[in-house]
């Protein structure tokens, strides 16, 4: 803060919280340009050594199985899966599927 002097203890805390450098979860202001590339979990935009492990050697964030990955197929990132257009045509497509990992069988077919 250059133009406001924090006078009481609360002001110091407010100033600290309002400092964009402390805004780690981007709750306060517009997103600051990310310093590092965003690496989505559960998808392989970068070279992947294969399906056995991700690029860090872990297995928890792999694309498979399908119930883990299904929403990424039409929202988060590109994946060549055929899913309905949930924005316009089939907004209720996943209405019965509260938790993908549990309820993915309840997702029905969509007819034009």
């Amino acid at each position, binding site marked *: *803060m*250059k*133009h*406001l*002097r*924090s*006078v*009481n*203890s*609360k*002001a110091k*805390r*407010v*100033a600290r919280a*309002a*400092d*964009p450098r402390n805004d780690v979860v981007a709750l*306060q*202001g517009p997103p600051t340009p990310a310093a590092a590339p965003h690496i989505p979990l559960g998808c392989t935009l970068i070279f992947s050594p294969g399906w056995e492990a991700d690029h860090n050697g872990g297995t928890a964030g792999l694309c498979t199985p399908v119930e883990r990955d299904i929403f990424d197929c039409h929202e988060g990132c590109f994946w060549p899966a055929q899913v309905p257009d949930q924005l316009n045509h089939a907004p209720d497509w996943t209405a019965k599927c509260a938790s993908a990992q549990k309820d993915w069988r309840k997702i029905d077919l969509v007819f034009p």
Partner: protein
Amino acid sequence: MSQLALREFHSFQAAGKDFVYLVPSAAVFELDDSSAAVINRLRAGNVSREDLARQLSALFPATEVDETISELLRVRAIGEIGVPEKKAPKVMPPENFPLTTMVLNVTNQCNLSCTYCYEYGEDKIVDTENGKKPKFMSEETARESVDFMLREAGANKVAHLTFFGGETLMNFPVLKSAMSYARQRAAETGKQVDFSLTTNATLLRPEIIEFLAENRVGVTISIDGPKEMQDQFRVFSNGKGSYDIVAPKIKELLKRHRSRPIGARVTLTSQTLDIRKIYKHLTEEIGFWDVGFAPVTTSPSTKYAIAESGFDAMLEQFRALAADFLEAALENRHHGFSNVKDTLEEIHKGVSKAYPCGAGLGLMGVSTDGDVALCHRFAGSDAHKLGTVRDGIDRLVQIGFLEKHHIDDKTDCSQCWARPLCSGGCYHEAHTRYGETARPNLHYCEWIRGWTDTCLKIYAELSVSNPKYLEQFDEKVDYEASPVS
């Protein structure tokens, strides 16, 4: 293009500089020239960021204005129109909130008959004469209360036990035995108990004074000032004033009891409204370390009630004495006007209260039969009962009370800049005035705002001219001061 507008704050000047008190965060910021200019411009009407920079370009470079706007936006002194304000959610206190202070009404009897008394006068809640409550607390109930206090203190290491009445010293034997029992139980449970009491001083005897001094009992004396003021309302049942009885006893107490500072607690009425004179008498002639003032709690119809114009007069007098306080604080001298000091401490920490006080939360009052009430002023009232010392706190009743009395539910307060500190004011005052504890005390809003403004100015002045003075408020974590009224 989005327009900028002022958000909620109170602005004031001190030491020739501009300050803002932000609401509801309770943060105090000093403005430099550019931030003061931005706020001043926005006072005249809403304007876009670009226009603002252009309009102020003669005074400040555009980048500086832009930087200032960003800072003011971040601390929420200003905001963009159309962008909803980020309202803090209604946060309830955590469950099983630890009890910090228990006020034990060891008796509801009193040897004085003060005209304005909320326990005996026209405004009383509990029938203390013919009611079903015992007139004196038994040793057993006092012991059960101590157990209750230590149990409800939870993880707190220190519990505060305040003895209260009626006239506290009318039940000195129980006070004494409760203290020794509390010491013993505290040692067994690895806690500490801090003791204090409030008394009218009529029953102070050398051996009692000795006991209080030896045991480091904090003492607050209810006294209204010099003889003519004290004797106006603080009288015996035959109408005789109490000044000549209490003054020598208090002097004796002050001479012997040096282990803790001893304070006076003054009830102000329309007929005894001369604060400087009272203060001077109590500190210089009697020798009190500090003096706290509170206007009498009563319905507006009584002749001693402070009417609206009286609040203005009271504010003027508070301000005059506060000016003396500031003068002393600038020179690092002690000044015993405790109303200022208490408020400065709250401003320093930046408290933004969900509730006006700790009643029903960290502070509870226990009546002579062991019923637990919101605070000592409600002790014995069935309508304000939270449980008993034997069965503990009825959590559902407590949560219901806290839900209902939260500042977010006081619509009248929602536009007031003083709400972080006031939060609607005393439940007992509201009950006496309006018959409803949840009502904000609208009869003294102007007074609260005037007084808060005065204390903010003193705080800001000290932050510029003697910042070292404010460091004394840094590390204290004892949020629940002992009740004195």
